[in-house]
């Protein structure tokens, strides 16, 4: 913890300074306090460009870097000393280091009031716009009769005073922690486009057009015909330049043209807010660097990987293993992408290992179904494998083996059958054979490879992720998504790979018609040009880009504008667009996968009351059931969409006990937050969620009678457990959320990106969700990790070999 101490007095050896020195000494075990002498600054005057400008900046810098500031003030004439006043004026004129900075006020006076009036003034001053400090409230430390308060060693004499000071100081440290939390998350996202605003100029309105891309202000155009020429011209040129180069609204106004300067800055701020950004965040950003420092950063490497998720990092690791130089560029501040969000294990057939686990009831029946399946319905390229699989299954069933069965072929056929779908236009899609073959052949190799890198898997559990259809999941021992990412990141750093975060790639670098790297920019807005011999696109799908999903969708009858997503907000289809810029072919773009039972706002799966389908009742906004609660994800999703997307899971006090995701405290919090509804009667619950009570009560009565009868004449639900009858009753709002996009860039088995004529695009590779063709219409749970680590490795290896070829 680093703090800055300021003694607000015009004299050196006052009690005010003694108090600050005492705080520094007494609490040195809690925080490091550096005391700044403000008397080195001259009396503030806005019109004088002082030689001390550097000094102002240096002090400002120290405050900016500190965790907090303690100001000790004397009282002069019921207010703060002019020295302190002047200091704050310097710190709120061109520099604004107190912005969102935690500040603690203490003070002394010779008489008994202990600077009470000065402290109140100081609070108001620190609260003013331009200062914008965060002042610790309460904890008023007023040291009166300061002449007799200190002993000869300059320590405070009174033990209870020290005790109180300590408690104030500890509260301040706590306040600093809270402030850190508030200061986090300073990213901005814009809805790209051109925004028209009219700022206030000196002579009236200034029409302005501001162009923004997703994360940047790209262009500021000002219609200046109404403004007088002269100094304002500098404003119209320099201020937009600084805003764009620095991506900040923390811009010095031009002396002598402050109104026009503010007009331009405020106009851009308005446009930012219109574009869905937050201008306050941009105002808090540092000032633009000197233009000289804004020149492009040029780097050269063998392989550049776009995207720092599981696919990108494994591609980078493989290229490093092949002794190539590698740079990974990630647009977010940290690597991980969607991979870090995964909770599921990774599929790989490993019959020797799986054969150590007992088979479960029902698994045999599933295998028997395969034997009875009509071979004519299997697509030609898979027929041979299907026949061989049947043989394997026959042998297994005949052997009387009671252990878990699996084989590469079984994984392959399940991936194929699971992905076979027909869209609304009648177009059929299934996984491309050569890609599915590689995926299933190399899945186990990918698990072993990850073990080499440092991922530890749990040997004692073979799991079946949601939607996986078979138990072949390898589950990391450590927290799942993070286990993969941390191991890969460590490996890359140790092997000399470079990871540039906060660096979105905007375009491919093309020289003489060939891809030679990528162009992006970093968090300072500085252009970054990376020259590379191979480019691997591993930037994920487009699950967080609703517009793009709507554009391509051919599978769902409707995609809501407000659809939530389980994806990282980074997953915007960037790599697919990069591929399209070089004429790459796309495949299966209309097919996306949704999680039907998700939080309507956040897309999260584990909020509300999640109970087994045997217990929950699903009702729509009319209060009626509309689907068998046991249906598959696809059917549930489409049924929900047909019923206006939003639906409710109804439970009662007994059903609540079967919830696997929550506890009483969480339930109470969610009820208080309005994200979960609770009522003592069904009628009241219906009223809370805006459903006609009679309809709702009727629905529940009918459902309860089906449970009694063990038969559901409406939707054919087959497994029942609890009725809905014991108050209080609960309703959890749910909505399908976007989960995975199956479509993407068309690749071959070596992860080369193909163009629309099926020809390899030189130097370009793709892996992971950015590529399409594998999962086709529906991805098996647990197969995405298999995909990214298998094709990520292939892309990295091939990108490295690409250099050998030349």
């Amino acid at each position, binding site marked *: 913890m680093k703090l800055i101490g300021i003694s607000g007095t*015009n*004299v050196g050896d006052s009690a005010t300074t003694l108090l600050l020195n005492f705080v520094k000494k007494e609490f040195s075990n809690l925080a490091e306090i550096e005391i700044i002498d403000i008397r080195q600054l001259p009396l*503030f*005057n806005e019109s004088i460009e002082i030689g001390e400008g550097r000094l102002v900046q240096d002090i400002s810098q120290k405050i900016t870097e500190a965790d907090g500031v303690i100001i000790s003030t004397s009282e002069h*004439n019921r207010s703060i000393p*002019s020295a302190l*006043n002047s200091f704050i004026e310097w710190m709120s004129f061109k520099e604004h280091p107190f912005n969102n900075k935690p500040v603690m006020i203490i003070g002394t006076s010779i008489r008994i009031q202990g600077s009470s009036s000065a402290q109140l003034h100081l609070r108001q001053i620190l*609260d003013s716009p331009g200062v914008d400090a965060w002042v610790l409230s309460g904890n008023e430390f007023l040291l009166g009769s300061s002449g007799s308060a200190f002993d000869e060693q300059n320590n405070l004499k009174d033990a209870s005073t020290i005790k109180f000071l300590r408690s104030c100081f500890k509260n301040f440290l706590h306040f600093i922690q809270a402030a850190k939390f508030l200061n986090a998350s300073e990213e901005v996202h814009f809805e790209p486009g051109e925004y028209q605003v009219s700022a206030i100029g000196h002579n009236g309105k200034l029409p302005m057009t501001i162009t923004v891309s997703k994360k940047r202000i790209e262009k500021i155009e000002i219609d200046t015909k109404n403004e007088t020429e002269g100094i304002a011209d500098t404003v119209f040129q320099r201020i937009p330049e600084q805003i764009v180069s620095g991506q900040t609204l923390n811009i010095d106004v031009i002396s002598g043209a402050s109104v026009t300067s503010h007009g331009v800055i405020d106009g851009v701020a308005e446009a930012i807010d219109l574009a869905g950004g937050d201008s306050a965040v941009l105002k808090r950003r540092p000032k633009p660097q000197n233009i000289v420092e804004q020149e492009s950063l040029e780097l050269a490497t063998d392989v550049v990987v776009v995207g720092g998720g599981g696919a990108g990092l494994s591609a980078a690791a493989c290229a490093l293993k092949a002794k190539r130089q590698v740079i990974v560029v990630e647009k977010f501040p940290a690597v991980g992408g969607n991979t870090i969000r995964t909770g599921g294990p990774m599929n790989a057939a490993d019959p020797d290992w799986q054969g150590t686990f007992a088979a479960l009831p029902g698994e045999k029946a599933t295998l028997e179904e395969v034997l009875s399946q009509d071979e004519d319905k299997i697509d030609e390229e898979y027929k041979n494998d299907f026949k061989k699989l049947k043989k394997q299954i026959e042998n297994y069933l005949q052997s009387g083996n009671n252990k878990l069965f699996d084989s590469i072929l079984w994984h392959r056929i399940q991936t194929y059958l699971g992905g076979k779908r027909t869209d609304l236009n009648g177009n059929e899609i299934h996984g491309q054979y050569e890609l599915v073959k590689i995926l299933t052949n190399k899945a186990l190799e990918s698990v072993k490879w990850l073990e080499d890198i440092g991922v530890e898997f749990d040997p004692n559990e073979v799991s079946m992720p949601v939607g996986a259809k078979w138990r072949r999941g390898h589950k990391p021992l450590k927290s799942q998504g993070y286990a993969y990412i941390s191991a890969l990141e460590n490996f890359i750093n140790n092997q000399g790979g470079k990871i540039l975060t906060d660096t979105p790639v905007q375009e491919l670098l093309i020289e003489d018609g060939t891809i030679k790297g990528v162009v992006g920019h970093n968090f300072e807005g500085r252009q970054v040009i990376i020259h590379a011999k191979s480019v691997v696109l591993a930037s994920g799908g487009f699950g967080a880009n609703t517009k793009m999903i709507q554009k391509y969708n051919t599978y769902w009858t409707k995609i809501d504008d407000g659809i939530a997503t389980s994806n990282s907000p980074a997953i915007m289809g960037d790599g697919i667009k990069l591929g399209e810029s070089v004429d790459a072919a796309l495949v299966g773009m209309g097919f996306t996968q949704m999680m039907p039972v998700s939080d309507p706002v956040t897309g999260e799966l584990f909020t509300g009351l999640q109970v087994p389908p045997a217990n929950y009742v699903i009702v729509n906004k009319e209060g009626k059931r509309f689907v068998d609660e046991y249906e598959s994800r696809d059917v549930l999703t489409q049924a929900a969409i047909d019923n206006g997307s939003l639906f409710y899971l109804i439970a009662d006090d007994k059903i609540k006990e079967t919830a696997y995701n929550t506890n009483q405290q969480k339930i109470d919090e969610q009820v208080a937050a309005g994200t979960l509804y609770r009522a003592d009667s069904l009628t009241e619950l219906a009223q809370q969620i805006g459903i006609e009570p009679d309809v709702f009560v009727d629905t529940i009565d009918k459902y309860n009678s089906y449970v009694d009868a063990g038969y559901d004449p409406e939707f054919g639900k087959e497994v029942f457990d609890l009725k809905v009858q014991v108050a209080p009753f609960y309703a959890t709002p749910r909505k399908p959320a976007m989960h995975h996009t199956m479509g993407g860039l068309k690749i071959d088995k070596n992860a080369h990106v193909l163009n629309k004529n099926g020809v390899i695009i030189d130097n370009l590779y793709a892996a992971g969700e950015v590529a399409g063709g594998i999962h086709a219409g529906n991805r098996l749970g647990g197969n995405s990790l298999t995909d990214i680590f298998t094709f990520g490795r292939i892309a990295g290896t091939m990108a490295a070999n690409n250099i050998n070829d030349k």
Partner: protein
Amino acid sequence: MINLIGIVGTGAVESTNRKLLQYMKERFSVQATIEICELTDFPFFNKPVSKTAPETINRISEKIIAANGVVISTPEYDHTIPAALASLLEWFAYTTQPLKDKPIMITGASYGTLGTSRAQSHLRQILNAPELSGLLMPGREYLLGGSLQAFNDKGELMNSAKKEELDKYFEDFVRFVVKNQ
């Protein structure tokens, strides 16, 4: 005819508070003489142990003591008065104390709409401190917002309501000064 000292509450080169005082000086030249003083003439208060005032402070103090009253026009910086004005008042409080029982009129001009309301309220509290003991008229304040656009080329206030308000305030102040001689 009364004699007043006008204090521009900032050292800035461009100041609408200076403009306001200059306007008042012209406008009320029949009722009063106003001598305008600049803060740039005074050093930064440093609380000398000797408690003696610098020469410039002595000089303005003598003028104030000889005058019938004082007009202070203050800007607002960070919700309070400028440090330069605070520094002058610290000199007064610490050394010569010329404002004791001296009638004081407070005005203020700001670019924004509030017209220095918070600075004026601080200034009242400050002038009320025992070492300053200025004599302030209760209930009178003059807040000139939008001051950049308030004056015409000749330095005259353009808004007639604001003009009348100032006339009225000044009339009251003259009466207040006379009463307190």
